[in-house]
């Protein structure tokens, strides 16, 4: 991986190539294992079954790669306000670096990304968090869910969380309908 410093890992070309390399490696190594097994006389369906965990992982790596690639390409095409392209670039970087950070093993496996480079990934990844944090609320506001659609005491637009939790709890049938438990069990217990 040609990255020399942590900023290099904010380049889509760099992280896309890492994803592409890893996906290709997982597919080819699993294919090689399949071939080994069949050439050593194992029946095809048995060989397949012995590779399914790696096959599933290769498929995930492929889809993850395509998702990162598609995100990066979509960001380049953004023609609306410059601020949007910038924040989307941050999000794309975060998504990609989070994928490398939380699946470090498969990227380190053949040394394509070195330990030192993984430190750079971690640094860039964590640097992005406070940057995006500033725009976190506007980024979710853009999803444009009404309070009724969210139907959540915690997520309302006006942020009146505690009032709403209390209000809704009072509407609960556990508060509005008398429970026979008192007459049947509690009262006799308390007046024993």
């Amino acid at each position, binding site marked *: 991986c040609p990255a020399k410093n942590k900023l290099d890992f904010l380049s889509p070309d760099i992280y896309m190539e890492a994803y592409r390399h890893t996906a290709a490696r997982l597919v080819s190594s699993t294919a090689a294992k399949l071939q080994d097994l069949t050439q050593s006389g194992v029946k095809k369906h048995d060989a397949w079954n012995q590779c*399914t965990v790696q096959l*599933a992982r290769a498929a*995930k790596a492929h889809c993850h790669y*395509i998702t990162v690639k598609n995100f990066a390409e979509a960001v380049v095409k953004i023609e609306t306000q410059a601020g949007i392209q910038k924040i989307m670039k941050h999000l794309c970087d975060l998504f990609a670096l989070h994928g490398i950070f939380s699946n470090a093993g498969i990227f380190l496996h053949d040394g394509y990304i070195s330990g030192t480079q993984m430190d750079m990934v971690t640094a860039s990844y964590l640097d992005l968090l*406070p940057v995006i944090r500033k725009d976190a609320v506007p980024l979710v506001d853009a999803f444009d869910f*009404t309070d009724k*659609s969210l139907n959540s005491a*915690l997520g309302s637009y006006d942020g009146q969380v505690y009032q709403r939790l209390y209000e809704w709890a009072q509407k609960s049938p556990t508060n509005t309908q008398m429970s026979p438990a008192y007459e049947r069990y509690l009262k006799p217990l308390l007046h024993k």
Partner: protein
Amino acid sequence: INPDIASERQTASFSVEKLMAWLDGSAEHTRIRRAVVEAIECDPVFSRENQYFQSQNERYEEAVKKAVHLQKKMQEMGWTENGPEYKYIYRALAGDVAFLLHRVFMRSISMLGSDKQVAKWIPLATQYQLIGSYAQTELGHGTYLQGLETTAVFDITTQEFILNTPKISAMKWWPGDMGRSATHTVAFAQLYIHGKCYGVHPFIVQIRSLQDHSLCPGITAGDIGPKMSFEHADNGFLMLQNVRIPRENMLSKFCEVQPDGTYVRWGSQKINYFTMTSVRISLISDEVITPVMKACTIAIRYSVVRRQSKLKPGEQEAKILDYQTQQEKLLPQLAAAYAFHLISNYLQELFDRGYREIQRKNFDMLPELHAFSSGFKAIITQYCTSAVEICLRACGGHGYSLLSGLPSLYTKILASCIYEGENTILLLQTARFLIKCFMAASAGQPVPPSVTYLAAVKPGK
């Protein structure tokens, strides 16, 4: 407005309205979407206010009431199934409406039925003169279609198919709308002619009387009982005992049994997967990405209101979103919501292109489309289910209350890892395609554009 959240909005580095328009595709789409939301949310019949306090029966009844009312609403508003508003309706209703499988019933007839069958059944379904379901999964069999045990034997003397679920494991299990609503269903069964099996095919079967909704002869059906979520849906079971249906009820756009028992096919066997490919791609945006966007919205807004312990001694307790660990929980999920919103658009474009080719009887794209939709359905549902769980847990105890909205989002999205193909099986279907492409690329043969990167790998052996 709570000042803690108001202040977050004053320092935005971009225009929220412009980002919204970009997400929607254009400002006009935003306008249409908002108009649909407004129309639905001001109608009390669609209110979800008491959702968290209702029993399963009450939820089902409400869902049916909404679905019926929605038809009137659509007429009133001039919305049509092909109009720009349609895709926003379901989002605005938050999925809390019956007859979802009725839509799949119609889609499968549109895709797999001949022109004559479409002309006969689709108007009836569109006007709700019947209610359809889509019965594929069996008690003992799921994604592996070839393993289905329901049988359809062609009786040449009466020009009918005789359908049976010969064992308890063959009983259809899970189809929505089946338990208490549907009058008809598309049922997948192994076709037998003169004792020879021709594989799984779709058949239209009437299961309840249009007069009094009683079960038809030979049909046993009912609700499968309590589930982790989907209280509003009557997921059902279906047993068939020598149920006879006319020859014309086998969907025959791509294959047919002629009166003399000859079986004719034009196109690949995989075409039966096509309905599922289409459903997988469409469910990604409605059933998976919208919920994860909601979960992020709830968790992030709560995290700028909730203050807990201090970052700097002597200062006010900090907003929990100011902690790196809280950012590291939530912000990658937010990035993923955007990433998958974009890939969902990409998949839809790929599907539309594939569908146009298939209508021209060119099936070349089918394998890639099937592999893509399988793999992405798996990875997106898996990623998003985990994301919603992280959002719920990031909200502490309040996240655990139904009133937060997060438990409902979580229990519902979890199902998406299982229905329309269990994720591991789908990933292996994608892997099968990748291995084939890798072998082809290694031999210098052409491969679809999405996997050309495999050609760059020098095979070790």
